[in-house]
């Protein structure tokens, strides 16, 4: 079962928001084949409906709601003189609550053959009754799931297999990495493998193993099985750090599923993280390339040191640009850079190529993190808006908003206090209203451009377009 939240913003007082395609994407993303999609409104003035998306019909529905429960028709709920504990910003919305009673707050949609089961004219609507507002739906997918697809493949659709160097060595298909990951999890003890399998099977972009794989196709040595072992180890290492991070950040969900700490407790999370930290370093040691071992171990050290800095900086939330770069360079970019460099080292690439790819990975990793920060402010991402704000996670858009001459003072004041739903929503609105998101977008794009320039100085034997495509895909999700 997967558990997640869908967030979106409505624009009008009464609005039928067609969420069919959004739900379809969630089913696809989760890899669900057969089962049920359960949907629940988390608001008392937001209903759900399954009906036809025909504009005149939607106006008929709105008119019907107005007839049954007209606005301002003397609802007792709107008599604030008689109510207790009325919030200062309480809206006059008795009609909206009554209208919601005519609709439903829950829906279950069947899923077959990986798609929603809907009649030809049926669409699924979230019905706004008291907008415009930021809204959230709870979503659970319960049923049979296919093995995760590799998003990295679609992120970099260029060549899959090719011949490089003089010895005809071949690069690997992503499937080999998935097979190696599955194989490694199969041989591990159940108490540690079961939580890690859930995390791995929930998806993830597989960007780091993809970078290993691409970089390993550059040098003269072609060893697909060792490349797959390194790529799988890097992905396991990444996931091991996520398991500990989730405990530290008190995150309840990742990739739409409960975190190991939330589902099985922090003790299990620590043990599973440690196991896969150790296993990944063992797999890398078994490859027997000292340069590769050294590269990955240095990255791991940088990640852990930056995690400490990251938590320490939460006392000065939201921090500043320099601190942000220092933390992100260790926390995210170090493993991107190491994935590129170690893949190239394994393939026997020349030192100048290894270093250029290391710089490419570093720049790409920082750009990737900036893009990830932007997702936190995107209602269409499928993730709850403002999660980073709520968890006080280092985020460049927040840093820029806090520096903004107009909204900065209010952002800083809000971030200095306790952050409930109202404060988080207000901060998100302020960030969106200034040019913070545009600044971050431009900066991420400039980093991608710089990463691509690193590739111009070295001989990549036809891999350049794929690496360029991968770099652009890191920020495409925010353009």
């Amino acid at each position, binding site marked *: 079962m997967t558990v997640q939240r869908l967030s979106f913003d409505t624009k009008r007082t009464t609005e039928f928001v067609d969420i069919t395609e959004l739900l379809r994407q969630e089913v696809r993303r989760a890899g669900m084949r057969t089962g049920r999609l359960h949907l629940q409104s988390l608001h008392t003035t937001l209903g759900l409906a399954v009906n036809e998306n025909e504009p005149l019909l939607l106006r008929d529905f709105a008119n019907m709601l107005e007839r049954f429960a007209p606005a301002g028709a003397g609802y007792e709920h709107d008599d604030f003189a008689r109510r207790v504990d009325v919030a200062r910003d309480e809206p006059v919305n008795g009609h909206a609550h009554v209208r919601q009673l005519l609709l439903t707050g829950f829906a279950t949609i069947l899923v077959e053959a990986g798609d929603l089961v809907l009649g030809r004219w049926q669409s699924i609507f979230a019905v706004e009754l008291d907008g415009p507002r930021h809204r959230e739906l709870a979503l659970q997918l319960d049923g049979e799931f296919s093995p995760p697809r590799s998003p990295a493949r679609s992120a970099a659709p260029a060549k899959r297999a090719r011949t490089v160097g003089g010895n005809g060595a071949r690069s690997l298909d992503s499937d080999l990495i998935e097979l190696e990951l599955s194989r490694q999890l199969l041989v591990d*003890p159940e*108490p*540690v493998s079961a939580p890690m399998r859930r995390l791995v099977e929930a998806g993830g972009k597989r960007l780091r193993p993809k970078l290993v794989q691409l970089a390993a196709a550059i040098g003269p040595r072609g060893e697909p099985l060792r490349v797959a072992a390194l790529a799988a180890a890097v992905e396991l290492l990444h996931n091991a750090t996520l398991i*500990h991070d989730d*405990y*530290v950040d008190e995150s309840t969900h990742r990739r739409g599923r409960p975190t190991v700490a939330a589902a099985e*407790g*922090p*003790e*299990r*999370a*620590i*043990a*599973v*993280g*440690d*196991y896969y*930290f*150790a*296993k990944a*370093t*063992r797999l890398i*040691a*078994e490859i*027997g390339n*000292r340069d590769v*071992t*050294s590269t*990955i*171990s*240095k990255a*791991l*050290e940088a*990640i*852990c*040191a930056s*995690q*400490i800095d990251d*938590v320490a900086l939460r006392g000065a939330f939201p921090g500043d640009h320099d601190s942000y770069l220092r933390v992100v360079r260790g926390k995210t970019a170090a493993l991107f850079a190491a994935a590129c460099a170690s893949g190239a080292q394994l393939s026997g690439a020349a030192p100048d190529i290894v270093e250029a790819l290391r710089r490419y990975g570093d720049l790409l990793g920082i750009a990737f993190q900036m893009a990830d920060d932007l997702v936190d402010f995107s209602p269409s991402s499928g993730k709850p808006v403002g999660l980073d704000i709520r968890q006080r996670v280092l985020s460049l858009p927040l840093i820029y908003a806090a520096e903004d001459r107009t909204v900065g003072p209010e952002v800083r004041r809000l971030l200095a206090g306790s952050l409930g739903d109202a404060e988080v929503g207000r901060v998100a609105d302020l960030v969106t209203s200034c040019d913070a998101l545009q600044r971050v977008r431009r900066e991420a794009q400039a980093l991608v451009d710089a990463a691509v320039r690193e590739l111009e100085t070295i001989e990549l034997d036809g891999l350049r377009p794929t690496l360029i495509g991968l770099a652009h895909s890191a920020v495409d999700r925010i353009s």
Partner: protein
Amino acid sequence: MSVQLIDRELDRLENLWEDGLSDAYRSYLEAVAAHEPAAQPKLALAAALVEIGIRLQGLGGRAAAPPSLLMGDLCLARSSRLLADAATQAVQIAFARAIEAMSTAAASGASAPAARELLLHALKAS
């Protein structure tokens, strides 16, 4: 190991030296005597960092608070880098297997094997 070298390898972990790390370090010095002289202090420190790191994390016991967990993570990472610098492949693999054994026991709720015993054994791997 020279004082300067120890200082460098204890970056961010200085407080642990007086808090059990130096004792643990000394207890592994004898076990590394069979290794190359230049590698001995790094190997002893790597073993001591694993022992102290998992203790900081609360592995096999009550979960540590996040700051302590992160410090433990850094101990394990530093140890891993020291092994990459100075250990043979066999010792690197044996260290990893020792941590795998301890974390499996912790995840299973079984009594954990003694860390020092496992690490002393790992240092003899060839």
